């Protein structure tokens, strides 16, 4: 695999494929520039006069900017928390080929999300945490943590055992081995885990719907405000959806080069 084929047609084929893959997203972004009546027009309007009215509505009449900020706080913190907890656990699970902790980590992903709403609301209310960021971050961390953990497992499985053993022979503590020797080898995995965790937390609306307070509502929860009898506004809804989709896309665009560059097969293995 050291010689990457650069055939003449690969770039155009992938570009067309990418456009097809993205067409619903492009449709969404275009719709956000249409009037509410034009969005559902049939046949679809390909030529139209773009309007910024939906974005004006979004940022002018609602707290969407603040909601987006809340999303950043919750998604950022739960991603970080999830990674910090998942990395050592994944290391131990991979090293000892354990089954049960890998299973337990997914407990919160086994029952329907709705099962947790009322108990968590009661629980966090009793603790005085309902409506605050902490409750939301914890609720989202049980999504991000197992996600990161399972994503890291194959990377850790692929790490040569000799590296860890050499560290053990040198008498390093497990924590030191993990941070000094293992982490640098699995950083593509950490990049993937970070993207995934952020995206999952950013997009998850059910827990925030029930647990957020007046000031901590996330963008995805707020975006539902554009549907209602006599008030359905497809344009503004698509504008909200477009704004929500941007940060994960920018994040992926930014980090995907680290995911690949210089990492042809086995480069990390030395």
């Amino acid at each position, binding site marked *: 695999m050291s010689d990457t084929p650069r055939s003449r047609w690969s770039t155009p084929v992938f570009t067309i494929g990418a456009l097809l893959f993205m067409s619903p997203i492009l449709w969404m972004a275009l719709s956000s520039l249409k009037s509410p009546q034009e969005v559902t027009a049939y046949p679809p309007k390909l030529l139209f006069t773009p309007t910024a009215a939906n974005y004006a509505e979004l940022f002018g009449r609602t707290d969407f900017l603040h909601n987006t900020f809340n999303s950043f706080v919750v998604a950022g913190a739960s991603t970080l928390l999830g990674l910090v907890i998942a990395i050592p656990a994944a290391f131990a699970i991979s090293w000892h080929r354990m089954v049960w902790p890998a299973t337990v980590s997914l407990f919160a992903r086994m029952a329907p999300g709705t099962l947790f709403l009322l108990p968590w609301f009661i629980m966090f209310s009793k603790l005085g945490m309902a409506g605050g960021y902490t409750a939301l971050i914890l609720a989202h961390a049980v999504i991000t943590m197992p996600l990161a953990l399972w994503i890291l497992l194959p990377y850790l499985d692929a790490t040569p055992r000799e590296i860890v053993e050499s560290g053990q022979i040198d008498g390093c503590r497990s924590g030191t081995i993990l941070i000094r020797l293992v982490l640098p080898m699995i950083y593509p995995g950490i990049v993937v885990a970070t993207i995934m965790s952020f995206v999952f937390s950013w997009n998850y609306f059910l827990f925030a719907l029930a647990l957020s307070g007046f000031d901590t509502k996330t963008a995805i929860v707020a975006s539902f405000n554009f549907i*209602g009898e006599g008030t359905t506004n497809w344009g503004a809804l698509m504008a909200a959806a477009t704004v929500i989709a941007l940060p994960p896309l920018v994040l992926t665009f930014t980090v995907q080069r680290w995911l690949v560059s210089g990492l042809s097969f086995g480069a990390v293995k030395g």
Partner: protein
Amino acid sequence: MRQFIIGAAVALVAMPAAAQEFDWRKHDGETINVMLNNLAWTQLMRDRIEAFTEATGIKVRAETFSEEQYRTRLTTLLQGGSSELDVFMTLPSREAPLFASNGWYADLTPLLKSEATDPAYNYDDFSAALRQSGVVGEAVTSVPINVEGPLFYWRRDIFEKCDVEKPEYLEDLPAAAEKIRACDSAITPWAARGLRGTVGYPLGAFVYNMGGDFMDEDGKASLCLPGTIKGLDLYGSMLRDYGPPGATNHTFTQVMDLLGQGRVAMTNESSNEFSTLMKHEGRVEDIGVDVLPGGRESGISKPVVINWSLAVSGLSEKKEAAWYFVQWATGAENQEELATQGIAPSRVSVFNGEGFRNWASESRPRGEWLEALLEISQTGSSLYQTPSLTRTPEAREILSNVVQQIVLGQADAETAACAVTDEVQALQN
């Protein structure tokens, strides 16, 4: 109609008396939390809340959600015993008995009788039927903010072009639809809700007008009644034979998109959608609005009419400040303001008031819309599924399933309707 107007006159006279003495600033500095379902009313009211804070000193934190999300959050908060929530919106025809039995509504009766109520508020000004929607047992549990119901929207121009009479009776719908189809194949003759859980509201009048009901003469729940079967059959077969493709996934958004874009000739859809509809190009000129035609054979015209209401949470620790907000939001002044923006008022005085009438006289559809609302608010019923104290949503789901079977051609109306007798009877206790 006469009673309606007389009521209004009395109300107007009663108002000014002791208005000045009421202390709106008694709860100055308090903060209340308000949760609202996203309706046109809500959108307009949100812009006015500042005025309430200015007048009373009460800070309002309002959050809005679309209906499904609203219910999920509201249920969680109330079941979780949250005392944070002070005021919420409620659909009494759906949930009043259940919410009341759970203690989720504050009893407004003592507040109404106390000094916490502005003497000018005049609770009796709300139309009697709407007022009644919020009464559970002896207790007033909520105050109506609007009046609404499904109305018959039809395209005058298409009917004229195709030389079709506007259906005089409900039974005439298929013939009219047939003619329209023959005359212009680009037009879908009929559209209506078919999505699960949403069918009951536009279906109700079909059942009543065809001589049906949701229980038999002995008060036992059933859909297996001759008139009911006819109503279900007509609703289902209109969608099946003359409706748009994919109707079983349609709710008000799709129905109104189709009608607004000029692709459908008639429908039975919520009066709340009227303002949205008028924003579509050309519809002001060609849309006709009326009450759904009555039944020829039965001689019955019994449309569906409901209202959304505001309630004070039974768990609120600031019930009086919350009640101040409800009073203000449902007060005559606010209703007058909203009425001229297309929100049908629940107060008789406002409904018959000059502002609303003038607004309605500005275009023909507006006038027709107002007349239709007036009629359904007097002849309408808020019951459009098997009567059940606490299991109304389930009853509506069963209705939807029956209709979907007819639309999809999986069963005829009689088979589908009679198969669920045990189920609907189980809902009654």
